């Protein structure tokens, strides 16, 4: 069996004021949930990803370990780390991300004392040129 070259992430900009392993795990989780990273895809070795992102190998190991715990990644000794073959896990992650996003929007709506529908309508209405309206005309 020959292995395809591993997937290469885009050069992510990481926020230096947030835990790096969590950001890397999150980016990979989103790639899998978006189904851009298909099941069975090989991930870069810890060494390669660490060098590419200029983080420590321990940081990448911790990100991979977290995703393995979630079942999204599988590591086979001597072969590397792969996206889990069971695609239901990717769909579950997709659903969880959507749920979390919705929860967040609901909280914002509640903070503003709005119904969710009202918030979405207001947001869509004021897309582009929102600033001027909200600032009461400005200059």
């Amino acid at each position: 069996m020959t292995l395809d070259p591993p997937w290469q992430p885009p050069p992510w900009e990481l926020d230096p004021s947030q835990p790096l392993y969590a950001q890397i795990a999150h980016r990979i989780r989103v790639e899998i949930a978006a189904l851009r990273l298909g099941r069975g895809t090989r991930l870069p070795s810890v060494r390669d990803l660490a060098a590419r992102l200029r983080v420590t190998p321990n940081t990448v190991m911790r990100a991979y370990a977290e995703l393995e715990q979630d079942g999204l990644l599988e590591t086979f000794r001597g072969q590397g780390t792969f996206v889990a073959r069971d695609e239901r896990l990717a769909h579950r992650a997709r659903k969880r991300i959507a749920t979390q996003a919705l929860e967040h929007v609901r909280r914002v709506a509640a903070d503003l004392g709005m119904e969710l529908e009202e918030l979405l309508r207001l947001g869509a209405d004021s897309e582009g040129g929102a600033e001027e309206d909200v600032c009461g005309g400005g200059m």
Partner: protein
Amino acid sequence: MFAAVECDDVCMTAGGRPILRGVTFRVEKGEMVGVLGPNGAGKTTLFRAIAGIGLPDRGRIRVFGESPSWRTLVHTALMPERGHLPKWLTAADWLTHARRLYPDWDERAEKRLADEFEIRLDGWISKLSRGEAVRLALVTCLARRAPLVLLDEPFTGIDLVSREAIASAIVRECSGAGRTVLVATHDVREFESLFDRVLFIGQGRLVADESADSIRARGQSVAARYREVFAK
């Protein structure tokens, strides 16, 4: 299991002046640790002591469980802040010499690094710019298989693009073999993501010893924490 580096109440003086005043810390194997502090904080003295070049007046240092001496030199690759590469040689001559000098020399790593750092092999060492000299010193340090790597201010006088290439090379050359890396610097820009842990050293004292992610978990970058620690 021995730690890669253990310092216990290390005190050192130079010309009667205290340089290190009771420094205690421990670095585990495979960690990448930033030793951060302003110029004159004692970082270079500390590295020399860990490398077995200087002897503490008080306290104890252990490198993989051994007292630093000529015997532990085989475990330790030190890149000094001001390298003293022989100026009368070309880069190629120097690398040929280093190949014979160090029993743990990895010729493939040497080629890979010399290529990546665009070392002009036929250039005289006396004619190298600060950036080129640092890159050649880094090749010399990283081409060895030493399990402990000490880099003293490897980023000074280097432009951003080279800084990024150097950071990538340090990670790549040091990760596969599970090497332990200590980097002393007063300039954390672009490199703060290279550290698992940071030791803040000011006026010869260990001011703080923190995991980089515990700093970030508070919503603070290592650079911001550095400013906070040394603001006064």
